[in-house]
């Protein structure tokens, strides 16, 4: 490089020797880089900035407040005309660079103008990513990237009507917020289940979604856009599931890509972005690049903070200081007034990373910090972002936080304030009037008085003064107060077993809260009940999924990823990874057509074994997951549906032949069995559920070891409950005797519903009845006629949503991805072939 030589040749009087620095891009990065260079050596370069937009340099990240009406364009101008003039900078606006010629060291502009350079700085930023769905080029489809886009949105908003924003990331949500404030009816479509999933976790994403919905926006997550409809103007957006959302404006904010086309055409090395070294120099030593268009050390950035750091390194390099850029830690704040969201660093964690979570349901606060090797590595804050700056600082400095680790989550003033590093001592030192339970307004003094008054367990404290009885987030504090107040007398044990390590509540408390407090989604339950983990564990997620499904039939959207493999695959996984398939045979009755279809499946798919099960069904073993949909299609064709042999659901109704054939039979046991199975198949339950109907007291169907058994007698039907033939043999107990078949059905439905609503997840009926007592069950089903009828009605209502065959949907192609690999690797050709 000959910079030194040129230095000597430089003529401060404005002679020809000053190097000419041409900057492509009049945006934040380009101008900031020039500012940094001027600050170091104002006379060093002659500067020309070429911009595509007609404006002077403005703050692009403040476009959202302009859209929202909180700022004007003048407010967001960073450098006005005078700055260019004062510093002798030539600004060429509204004339984008079309080509770079590295041979002649010049750039050519759209107008035909050619400018030569000594040094070239590419600061082209990024381009909005437009998903190439049909209709993406209709009038009224815009991105959210520059002032022209904001003007287009403001014009559309003047006419009112419906707007659809595709993309629930930072930019999309800010656009939606602005359009909403401008009076448009806004729907946000986000393909992922969580809003801003790059910055937020599920819990914070859910809180955000909730807050935006309260402001009148419609937020559709998991929404996959199929096409944008309209003749020449946008009329609406159609989703892949067929939903049509009317819209006169569509804002695409699904992401940005580094703008690299210009550099690529010039033969400069480009990966995801323009590749630069630590001094922001590209593969051509005379060409530099900075901002969102670059790739440094494999990283590309779409936020503003890294840009400042890059510009400093660039200016240092251009003035021979060579400090170098080392990559950036980024933080994000959503600019939606009244909603506080902050995220920084690597909150996803890795090996050895530990989460500390604090939730305060009454204030709508969620905080999560991630600690790894005694250092803070990430933070997500919702509702209270006051400590965001402090956390960000700790992350960037990589400070050892072990000294105040236990207090970290409470924020800077608490963690560093009193010097109380022992949580017990900190709680003991709290003044008597400090609030312990925010939900019920209970002070420390009152909790201590309650404990001293004889309440020596958490449950007793909850019962007497209501502290920790609502959201539960102060449970830890109350338990500490119990320990501090009672000393050695505190047993430390809770009387209720908690659901799992993620919560301080038991199953019954959680179920109760779901109904009482109208909780509708898993993240909502976790927030309201102060889960201590960000997204639960493999034991609470399936339980919560079931509880919500049971509480809100027809409304709750089943979360497949919270189900055990068998329920997700609608077949039973075997130890070799293949599956077994059990078609339903109503009441254990079959016919030649069904048997032929089963035989055909066994041969066609090479099933190594077929077995008659204890529940009078045929079990086909050794089916590969890829073959399951085809197997189901063949069985469906013969009229058979899923037997749910894999589910926490009704398994089988076992019957004997009854009065139709048997000389001892007293009633039509097969007929009743078939009716019971038709009524109750497909319903999800806390655990598997088996029914049997025997036609006489000889009990050939073994009804006395089933969850619900019927023994037919001359005068009617004996109804038996709570039997189990599993690990712990338990005979049924008599529920009651009824006279008609219809009564037997109604009581069965009521019993199932009581079990569904009140048993704990993974409780069979036997342990449940042992816990609550048969007298309780009788009091609800037999003695309380109104209550029984209501239970029956609730069961039948719930069944109206659950009796569609899951196999049929899968055989028709639903959720194909569950049955096929994403790809197949071919070592011979060394390339994978997509499986679909």
């Amino acid at each position, binding site marked *: 490089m000959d910079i030194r030589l040129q230095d000597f040749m430089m003529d401060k009087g404005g002679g020809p020797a000053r190097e000419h620095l041409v900057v492509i891009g009049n945006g934040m990065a380009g101008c900031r880089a020039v500012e940094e260079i001027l600050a170091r050596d104002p006379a060093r370069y002659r500067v020309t900035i070429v911009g595509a937009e007609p404006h002077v340099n403005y703050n692009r990240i403040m476009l959202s407040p302009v859209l929202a009406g909180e700022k004007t364009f003048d407010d967001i101008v960073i450098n006005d005309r005078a700055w260019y003039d004062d510093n002798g900078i030539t600004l060429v606006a509204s004339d984008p660079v079309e080509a770079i010629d590295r041979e002649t060291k010049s750039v050519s502009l759209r107008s035909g103008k050619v400018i030569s350079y000594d040094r070239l700085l590419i600061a082209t930023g990024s381009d909005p990513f437009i998903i190439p769905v049909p209709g993406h080029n209709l009038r009224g489809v815009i991105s959210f990237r520059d002032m022209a886009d904001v003007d287009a949105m403001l014009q559309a908003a003047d006419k009112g009507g419906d707007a659809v924003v595709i993309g629930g990331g930072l930019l999309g949500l800010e656009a939606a917020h602005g359009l909403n404030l401008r009076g448009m009816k806004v729907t946000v479509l986000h393909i992922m289940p969580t809003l801003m999933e790059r910055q937020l976790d599920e819990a914070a994403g859910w809180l955000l979604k909730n807050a935006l919905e309260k402001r009148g926006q419609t937020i559709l997550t998991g929404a996959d856009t199929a096409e944008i409809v309209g003749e020449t103007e946008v009329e609406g957006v159609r989703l892949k599931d067929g939903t049509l959302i009317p819209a006169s404006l569509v804002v695409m904010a699904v992401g940005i890509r580094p703008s690299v086309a210009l550099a690529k055409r010039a033969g400069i090395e480009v990966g995801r972005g323009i590749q630069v070294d630590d001094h922001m120099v590209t593969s051509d030593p005379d060409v530099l690049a900075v901002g969102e268009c670059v790739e440094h050390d494999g990283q590309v950035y779409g936020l503003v903070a890294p840009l400042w750091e890059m510009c400093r390194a660039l200016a240092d390099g251009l003035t021979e200081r060579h400090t170098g850029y080392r990559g950036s830690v980024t933080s994000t704040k959503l600019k939606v007034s009244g909603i506080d969201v902050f995220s920084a660093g690597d909150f996803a964690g890795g090996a050895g990373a530990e989460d500390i979570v604090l939730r305060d349901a009454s204030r709508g606060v969620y905080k999560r910090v991630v600690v790894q090797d005694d250092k803070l590595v990430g933070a997500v804050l919702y509702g209270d972002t006051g400590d965001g700056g402090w956390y960000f600082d700790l992350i960037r400095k990589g400070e050892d936080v072990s000294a105040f680790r236990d207090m970290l989550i409470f924020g800077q003033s608490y963690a560093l304030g009193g010097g109380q590093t022992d949580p017990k001592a900190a709680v003991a030192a709290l003044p008597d009037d400090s609030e312990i339970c925010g939900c019920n307004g209970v002070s420390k003094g009152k909790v201590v008085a309650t404990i001293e008054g004889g309440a020596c367990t958490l449950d007793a404290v909850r019962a007497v003064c209501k502290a920790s009885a609502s959201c539960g987030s102060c449970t830890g504090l109350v338990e500490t107060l119990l320990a501090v107040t009672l000393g050695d007398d505190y047993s430390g044990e809770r009387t209720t077993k908690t659901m799992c390590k993620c919560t301080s509540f038991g199953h019954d408390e959680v179920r109760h809260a779901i109904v009482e407090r109208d909780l509708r989604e898993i993240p909502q339950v976790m927030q309201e009940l102060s889960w201590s983990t*960000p997204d639960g564990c493999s034991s609470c997620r399936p339980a919560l999924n079931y509880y919500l499904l049971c509480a809100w039939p027809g409304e709750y959207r089943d979360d497949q990823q919270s189900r055990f493999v068998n329920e997700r695959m609608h077949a039973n996984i075997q130890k070799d*990874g293949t599956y077994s398939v059990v078609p339903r045979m109503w009441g254990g009755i079959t016919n030649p057509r069904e048997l032929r279809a089963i035989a055909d499946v066994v041969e066609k798919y090479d099933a190594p074994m077929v077995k008659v099960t204890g529940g009078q069904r045929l079990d086909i073993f050794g089916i590969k997951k890829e073959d399951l949909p085809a197997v189901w299609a063949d069985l469906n064709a013969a009229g058979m549906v899923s037997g749910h042999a894999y589910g926490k659901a009704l398994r089988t109704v076992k019957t004997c032949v009854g009065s139709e054939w048997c000389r001892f039979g007293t009633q039509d046991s097969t007929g009743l069995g078939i009716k019971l199975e038709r009524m109750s198949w497909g319903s999800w339950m806390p655990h598997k559920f088996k029914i049997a109907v025997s036609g006489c007291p000889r009990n050939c169907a073994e009804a006395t070891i089933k969850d619900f058994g019927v023994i037919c007698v001359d005068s009617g039907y004996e109804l038996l409950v709570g039997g189990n033939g599993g690990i712990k043999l338990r005979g049924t107990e008599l529920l009651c005797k009824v006279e008609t078949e219809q009564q037997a059905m109604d009581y069965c439905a009521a019993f199932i519903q009581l079990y569904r609503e009140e048993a704990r997840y993974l409780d069979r009926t036997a342990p449940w009845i042992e816990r609550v007592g048969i007298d309780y069950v009788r009091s609800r089903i037999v003695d309380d006629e109104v209550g029984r009828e209501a239970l029956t009605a609730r069961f039948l209502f719930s069944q109206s949503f659950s009796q569609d065959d899951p196999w049929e949907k899968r055989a028709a192609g639903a959720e194909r991805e569950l049955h096929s690999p994403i790809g197949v690797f071919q070592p011979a050709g060394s390339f994978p072939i997509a499986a679909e």
Partner: protein
Amino acid sequence: MVTGEWLDVGRLDEIPVRGARTVQIPGGEEIAIFRTGDNRIFGLVNRCPHKAGQLSQGIVVGHSVACPLHNWTIALATGEAQGEDKGCTPVVPVRVDAGRVLVSRAAALAAAA
């Protein structure tokens, strides 16, 4: 498509959030590619160190997966069994670029060998 050391196996959005998809290696061990709730990607040989259960079929929570056969919990980043259980399944380097899922070619070849 082959890009140097990485094999492009498909789109990120083809893998369910809190779920997994597999890459088959004819004559070798299947690879499981996991996508977590916070949208991270991890690759493991699709075999639990305990009884060879298909980890791809387990419940994914945080950065671990519970094996569908006996509920062993495996850390996605290291392949190590968690808690009292001892064992480890090999990690397969994976990454995402522009919405595409890339698997380390060397690891895929090793699995096929």
